[in-house]
């Protein structure tokens, strides 16, 4: 695991990103129907349309548009959002930290749940806790992902209105963060009131996002733990006098994580995609919510910027999963 390896991986991500950029560029320009015409109120003249096209540079030949667009993109200029009349980069950057915080909390929740559930199920193998874990993970996986967010809204909006079901922070709270990372900032500035409020808001969307991942992780991790428990190295620590709990947490879990990361790596990038819907359901002000608004408005510059941002997130997630794998597996780390 070297800096060299990470740099090489990042280098190989460049063609993927260029591919995504080209795809987005081309698709947006073969649009049936004219997005520019749709942006204008009914009754706009052909002249108005032409002027707007020129304004967005959509009247030049396609290759020329692409060169201009790529030049802008490389300079970090993604243009201006049509619907929000704000720089795309600024918009995305102001929303991105919210999404990142959501994703990080969700991953932490999913991993903690899965580890507890899988270790618990294996510790109480053949008794009721195992049945509960199997039953719950089966239930979570049987119901389509996006309904879990809605179920939370339904149950917690009506039956137990203890947690807020929309937004990121109570707007009446006197908290003026300097960055977009509210949660981290509240923690660093020891603003416990703000931290508690932010956690209350992030809990449900994070839980909804984490649930399907947690269930999938639990399944795979439990199977890997059972495999690990039958290995010779576990027999050896048993006869060294390890307790069952210590064997599971200290020996089997570390080993079981390796196949688990291999088998569930993809799921972590699904999580990034899941933010789009979850943010929308919980009116959480991240880039996912922004993406749905942009698509509904057919705000092409904003969509382009968001798609590229998501592509970068996917690539980074894959890189992080690979890094986790090589940290967990000493054989890979050293070769």
């Amino acid at each position: 695991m070297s800096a060299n390896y990470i740099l090489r991986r990042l280098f190989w991500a460049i063609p993927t990103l260029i591919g995504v950029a080209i795809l987005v560029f081309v698709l947006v320009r073969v649009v049936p129907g004219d997005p520019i015409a749709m942006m204008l109120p009914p009754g706009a003249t052909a002249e108005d349309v032409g002027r707007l096209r020129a304004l967005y540079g959509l009247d030049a030949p396609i290759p020329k548009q692409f060169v201009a667009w790529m030049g802008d993109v490389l300079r970090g200029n993604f243009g201006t959002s049509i619907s929000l009349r704000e720089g795309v980069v600024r918009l995305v950057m102001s929303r991105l930290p919210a999404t990142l915080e959501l994703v990080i909390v969700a991953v932490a929740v999913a991993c903690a749940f899965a580890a507890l559930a899988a270790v618990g199920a294996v510790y109480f193998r053949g008794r009721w806790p195992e049945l509960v874990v199997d039953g719950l993970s089966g239930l979570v996986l049987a119901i389509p992902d996006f309904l879990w967010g809605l179920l939370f809204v339904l149950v917690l909006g009506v039956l137990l209105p203890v947690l807020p079901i929309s937004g990121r922070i109570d707007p009446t709270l006197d908290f003026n963060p300097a960055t977009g990372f509210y949660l981290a900032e509240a923690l660093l500035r020891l603003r416990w009131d703000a931290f508690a409020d932010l956690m209350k808001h992030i809990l449900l969307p994070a839980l909804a996002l984490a649930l399907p991942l947690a269930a999938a992780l639990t399944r795979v991790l439990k199977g890997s733990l059972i495999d690990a428990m039958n290995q010779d190295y576990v027999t050896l620590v048993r006869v060294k006098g390890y307790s069952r709990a210590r064997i599971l947490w200290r020996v089997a879990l570390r080993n079981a994580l390796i196949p688990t990361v291999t088998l569930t790596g993809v799921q972590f990038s699904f999580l990034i995609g899941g933010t789009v819907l979850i943010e929308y359901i919980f009116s959480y002000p991240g880039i996912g919510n922004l993406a749905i608004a942009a698509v509904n408005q057919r705000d092409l510059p904003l969509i382009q910027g968001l798609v590229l941002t998501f592509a970068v997130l996917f690539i980074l997630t894959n890189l992080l999963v690979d890094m986790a794998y090589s940290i967990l597996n000493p054989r890979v780390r050293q070769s």
Partner: protein
Amino acid sequence: MSTLLAIRDLDLTLGSKPPVRLLRRVSLQVEPGQIVGLVGESGAGKTMVSRVVLGIAPANARVTHGSVAFAARDITHLSEAQRRPLLGREIAFIPQNPMTALNPVERIGPQITDVLRMHLDLGRTDAQDRALALLREVHLREPQRILRQHPHELSGGMRQRVLIAIAFACKPKLVIADEPTTALDVTVQKQILQLIRELQRNSGTAILFITHDLGVVAKLCDHVVVMHGGRVLESAAAARLFENPTHAYTRALFAATPRFDRPADELKPIPAALTQQLNEEARVLDARDA
């Protein structure tokens, strides 16, 4: 001194309908400081005997008769928690396959120091020093480096030395070695046997040495127990047994073992009639004990 390990009339039964009898009234004794060889073909029940002593018999196997006593204490039906203070401390284990017996994701150091810290209450640095000394005792070069390495960086022979160091770490009274050389190259086998004997002489630890190899037994053991089909057929001092084996099966086992003083073409397989007769006897015994 009293007997260290005394197994009396042990029955081990797997499942219930129909029950499978894994051990049939097995008795054997290990005196302090003695090396006892437990010999037999695969499936003879040698490993099951060791698993019962270590408390790692298969989950659905039960001791249905007899007892196991260690240092004059009945340990037949100890719970996992009750047995734990003994394991690694008083009774240690050398496994068969060094390639799979070490935790692949942990460095060698903590895999040696864990028993020291758990059973002897050593601090971090004391345990570290003791681990270094142990690695020197098993004649591993560059022990400092090995402590920081992962199992996959060591050869099979080196790993077996590490496992032997772990077994002897807390100066146990009894070490159970389950075919500790079978998975190794012939040249490495010899070195490992020498090492085990050396450590045994220095520490006075008793060893229950499980093997299918009579040649190894001849070189190493004071006493020999021959098993087949889950029962003990013959138990005698090594010198006596090699001079004058009384049981027909023991003689057949000798005839089937390659020796340096005998051409290979004189090797004879165990006669089928003998195996059949032994199985018949086992059935009669089962009917008697049922």
